């Protein structure tokens, strides 16, 4: 069972990985494997493919542990970034533009409840108009391209692109 994030020393495990201690990578896997797989699955929409992504991510985490720079962000955040970008590379690769089924569960369909989350980003998202918020969530959580978001929201592509640009500006202002 994963520990609370605050009780688990990600940086120390990563430093141990850099020294070649396989058990530290195993600890990280037990701690974050299910959440990383959840994130990857939501993006690539296929369990086998998502496991491929997490497999590749842990190889990258192992090999990159020595080069990890804590000044650039948290070790936990880095593990999620590595995993998300591997999944996104796969999603955006030529010919892989996955058509989504209407039945596909998406982040923006979940009733968005900012109060269920304490992190500041949820407070900032709540300030956005619902459609613009949907753009951000469909992109970050569901991995939708501009065109997929436009189709999903039945909105012109140019409008979606402008909404995303403005939403990012608003989020940056709000988050600092």
């Amino acid at each position: 069972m994963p520990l609370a994030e605050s009780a688990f020393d990600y940086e120390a495990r990563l430093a141990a990985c850099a020294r070649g201690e396989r058990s530290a990578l195993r600890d990280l896997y037990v701690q974050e494997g299910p959440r990383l797989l959840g994130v990857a699955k939501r993006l690539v929409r296929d369990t086998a493919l998502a496991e491929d992504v997490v497999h590749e991510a842990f190889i990258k985490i192992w090999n990159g542990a020595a080069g990890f720079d804590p000044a650039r962000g948290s070790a936990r955040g880095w593990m999620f970034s590595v995993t998300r970008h591997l999944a996104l590379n796969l999603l955006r690769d030529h010919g892989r533009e996955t058509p989504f089924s209407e039945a596909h569960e998406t982040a923006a369909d979940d009733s968005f409840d900012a109060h269920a989350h304490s992190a500041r980003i949820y407070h900032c998202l709540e300030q956005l108009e619902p459609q613009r918020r949907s753009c951000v969530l469909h992109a970050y959580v569901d991995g939708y391209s501009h065109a997929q978001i436009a189709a999903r929201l039945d909105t012109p592509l140019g409008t979606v692109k402008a909404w995303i640009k403005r939403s990012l500006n608003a989020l940056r202002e709000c988050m600092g």
Partner: protein
Amino acid sequence: MTSESAQDRDELAGEYVLGTLSFEQRSEVQRRLPNDPELRAAVDAWERRLLELTDLAPSQQPSALLWPRIERSLDRLTTKAPSTSWWNLLPLWRGLSAIGLAATLILGSILLTQTTPKPNFLVVLVAPQDKAPGWVIQASNSREIQLIPLGVVEVPADKALEFWTKADGWQGPVSLGLVKPGQALSVPLDKLPPLQPNQLFELTLEGTNGSPIGKPTGPIQAIGRAVKVL
């Protein structure tokens, strides 16, 4: 490439982290990241801002086969480079013998040139990976230093070596200019405070005109700290 405003860069970084860039745009960002500290800082900031949204994806228990598969892949990676004891580490002995050679050359040159004042600072610049010495710096006074190559290093045609120094307490490294591989160089330090013990010197690989932002951006080729000669 046209110059990019901070606003453009931040939008590119934001959409990169959000995931809405095309494959070509993503590849371009990933190609730039290792050598573009400003873009990297913008991407890092977006990663931090949006990270908590990963909570919206429900966790999923990996299959029991996934961890063994990861371990097998790691085994394959590590068998390529079997672990050896330090006694059998070629780079270590190479490095040590080269350091010995460097010391001999330095001491020899000091003996042969006793008419010139003996250097009061020495720096041996070594490669960060295998610690092989590539250059020595000697300073007979604290206003000028000589950079002396111990061999010829290969620099790609579209790159140049840039020489940097930073003493304890300085805001950041200061460029001492571009360095041609294999050529000795005298560098006046008249714009800088006098040399200090432990002052850092390094050579990084930059574009042909040097770093565009006045700070090292490329990989370190050689690095060392000043030692006061008694």
